[in-house]
């Protein structure tokens, strides 16, 4: 690993100053589970690492009227085990339980994971389908960005230089919302997904009131599959309609060839698992 300077600011203000001072040569570090591995493999080098561990107010989970506020430095495991999350948004806790191993989840942070923007990570499947937003703070103020619009490319986000992801806000989950997260792990249980699909839905009298679908490991970014949603919302559910809607993901996926499968296989599997996720959330007894 190349030598670097390690900074531990104690306020947001000081953090912004360090970012201004070091510009491109600086990188923020939270849990470090991804960054340190990349630095060890020389995939990434930084002159300055700015640790957020001493900046107050970035960690913890609050339930408020507009939903759950999850601090960026909250550990995966804390979110997964949180009684507040388990009662207000159990689907979120469930999806987090699929991330890596307990040891990683004890260290990795919610904000760090999102900012890392690895398209293989599980959490966006929950955040996108629960319509969560992230808060991006800078010297000049703050803005809210839907998680569905956070990722711009492979390991890239819309977070601007000088901006910091401080929290995730998950709006209240409507009663009766049905959820599914299907992670396809054909090699070993300890792996990134070959493809994964998250879905949330509300049904009334056999008609789809609301539907959100997200795909993981199927493109350079986590995908919000609005093409699927548009085909089914407001319609009565039939097996044929589900099959047809699932096939629509073929047009939006762009999977990479890797050790978890070829691009063409992942494309086929994206359709299969989208259909299965839709069956789970739209069909009774499925």
């Amino acid at each position, binding site marked *: 690993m190349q030598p670097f300077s390690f900074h531990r600011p104690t306020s947001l203000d000081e953090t912004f100053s360090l970012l201004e001072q070091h510009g491109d040569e600086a990188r923020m570090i939270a849990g470090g589970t991804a960054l340190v591995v990349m630095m060890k493999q020389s995939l990434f080098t930084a002159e300055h690492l700015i640790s957020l561990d001493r900046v107050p107010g970035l960690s913890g989970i609050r339930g408020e009227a507009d939903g759950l506020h999850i601090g960026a430095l909250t550990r995966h495991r804390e979110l997964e085990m949180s009684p507040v999350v388990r009662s207000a948004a159990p689907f979120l806790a469930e999806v987090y339980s699929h991330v890596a191993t307990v040891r990683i989840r004890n260290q990795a942070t919610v904000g760090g994971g999102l900012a890392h923007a690895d398209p293989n990570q599980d959490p966006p499947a929950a955040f996108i389908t629960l319509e969560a937003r992230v808060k991006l703070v800078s010297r000049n103020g703050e803005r809210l960005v839907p998680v569905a619009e956070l990722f711009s490319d492979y390991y890239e986000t819309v977070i601007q230089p000088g901006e910091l992801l401080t929290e995730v806000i998950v709006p209240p989950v409507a009663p009766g919302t049905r959820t599914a997260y299907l992670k396809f792990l054909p090699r070993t249980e300890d792996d990134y997904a070959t493809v994964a699909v998250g879905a949330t839905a509300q049904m009334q009298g056999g008609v789809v009131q609301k539907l959100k679908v997200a795909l993981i490991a199927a493109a350079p970014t986590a995908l919000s599959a609005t093409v699927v949603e548009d085909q089914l919302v407001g319609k009565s559910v039939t097996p044929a309609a589900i099959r047809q809607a699932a096939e629509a993901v073929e047009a939006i996926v762009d999977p990479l060839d890797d*050790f978890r499968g070829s691009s063409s296989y992942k494309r086929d599997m994206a359709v299969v698992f989208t259909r299965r996720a839709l069956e789970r959330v739209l069909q009774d007894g499925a």
Partner: protein
Amino acid sequence: MVSQYQVIGNSAPRVEGIDKVTGKALYTADFSPPGTIWGKALHSPYAHARILSIDTTAAKALPGVHAVITGRDVAGGMYGRAIKDIPVLALDRVRFFGERIAAVAADDEDIAQRALDLIEIEYEELPAVFDPLEALEPSAPVLHDGASAYQGMKLPEGAPPNAYSVIKVDRGDIEAGFAEADVIVENTYHLPRVHQVYLEPQSVLIWLDGERVQVWTCSKAPYNTREALATAAQIPEESVVFNPTLIGGDFGGKATPSDLPICYFLARASGRPVRMILDYTEELMAANPRHEVVVQLKSGVKHDGTLTARQVRFLVNSGAYAGYKPAGIIRGSNQAAGPYKIANTRLEGINVYTNTVPGGHMRAPGEPQAFFAVECHTDEVAKAIGMDPLQFRLLTLVEEGEETAFGEVLQDVLAKQTLMAAAEAAGYYSPKAPNVGRGIGIGDRPPGGGQGTADVTLRPDGTVLLTTGVFEQGSGTYTTFRQVISEELQIDPERVEIEVQNTDYVKMDSGLGGSRGTRIYTTAAYDAAQAAKTELIGLASRQLEWPEDKIAYAGDEVRRTDTGESVRWADLLARSGDTVSGRGHIQDSARPHFTSFTAQIAEVSVDPETGEVKLLSFTTAHDVGKIINPISHQGQINGGVMQGIGYALMEELRVEDGRVTTLSLGDYKVPTIRDIPPMKTVLVQSESGVGPYQIKGIGETPIGPVAPAIANAVADAIGVRVRDLPVTAEKVFQALKEAKA
């Protein structure tokens, strides 16, 4: 059956277990003589290239760097275990991606890495060959022009290019055998390279301490590795001392000399003790993985199930060098016709050089490859004549007194009994749900031989010291020693202390490997205990003036058989301040006339829409001798089966244009405990075995038939066959798609 033993046959905790789980156990990386610095090697970024120039000026100038060496600084040193064909550092040519070209010793690992980055090398790329079949073509680039000059090399006459070993066996009349057949089945199977994935990477520390070369390294065959190091460094073997250290996992891979010669030359150039530890990228890129093998099988069979002929072509991709293999080649070809009765057989076994990472040893070298091919093929032959795979095997497996496919006659053959035991335990014929299948794999191997020594010393405080030259890799040999001594001297196991000696102990000791540990070391320890008892009786006779033939050893005492008088031997020793010792030495490399069968049955479900294979249960039956330590024995079975599951379903060192691309354990996956299905073990007691307790080996037998059992179960479940490992969901999916088309 009431056991005649008190200690042997009862589960015993590990001698070194508490130290391991409390972190007190010492491994190579824990040793650090004053002034120790880090060594690191530079690996070739080409699969085949000429080295035009190397400039180390900038690397040498980096602060904190103590030595930079290249092929010019190693005196033409070549190394290897049997065939010395590996240059310590490439001189003018590299033959695989990852080959070591230069090395640096520096204050720490990061500085060493930065210095490596500063070394400038000019290459001229050469045409390369990666595929073992292509390497045999007359037009293939030749890797080793001067192969016949290598120490230990016996080149076969008239062999194709790059083939450095060709074994041919002809038995019966193969043409007549095929002519006699009703059906001929011909298949090709492909087995990928896999890594041992020991927790502790290859590690070494070398310290030139005056006249002696002090070595700490994770080698389970320290005497053999010492020879390889001494030859490479061109120094007398006696000047080298391998010091005891525990080994953090082995699975066959931990007797490679890999970085030892480099480490020696770095220590010499820097005048400091040098430590080298591979990181896992280097491990996966350039250690000593299990070989890629292509197996071509052709069988003639009659409609009644009689096998009339079988032809085997077993093509081993050795990689760029042969030196990591203890015998220069791997076995397996002799197993690739299976334990079946076939009158006419032909074998061609070829080891061939290619521009890929050299293979070494991994648990049962060659056998999982052979078993996969022949056991899948057996199912395919059975299918061709419309016979149930279990019935077909019961019809064709060898029995007592019959010759195996390559003419060996074995005693106490329990092939069918072991298979039936597995079938019954697995409920082989019970009804199956849709897309669920069961598959069989069977194979055999006897325990290996070698030489080993043990000394037993009875001490005045009533304790007993067992001295050994074994460096334990986790298979439980120290515990076996303690059990044997405790049994034979009739004392509490807690009173037996194990002392591990460095390589000055004896002239030669084979160390662990080849399922020889229990065979060799129970015999050595048993003989040492008997010799020590004899010595004690002699001492008692002298001291007490008792007639020697009237003295018996009885636990804590020596007893006079005619008068019934007895004396505690500890008191006897305390009186004179003496100790008594006995040595056991065994040298026995003969292949036993018995073997040990493993029959396994996998039950899987296959998702027809995705190809995903789920292992529902696994049954493993073993024909066993006396089991010394049941918990360790079961551990070997469980671990072997798990490793076999990895081989079957997920493990593969992917190689693209000669370059290993699975360079982390995130990409190269091994099974975790969540991937392991419910397992059932059945032990079939055999009347035969070797050594004082009539044992059979268990270290290697459990891994072999796992993959074919799983592949056969997949075929049974869903009607498609995958002939190249691993059986991934995608391959099954593709096969299903092709079957539909």
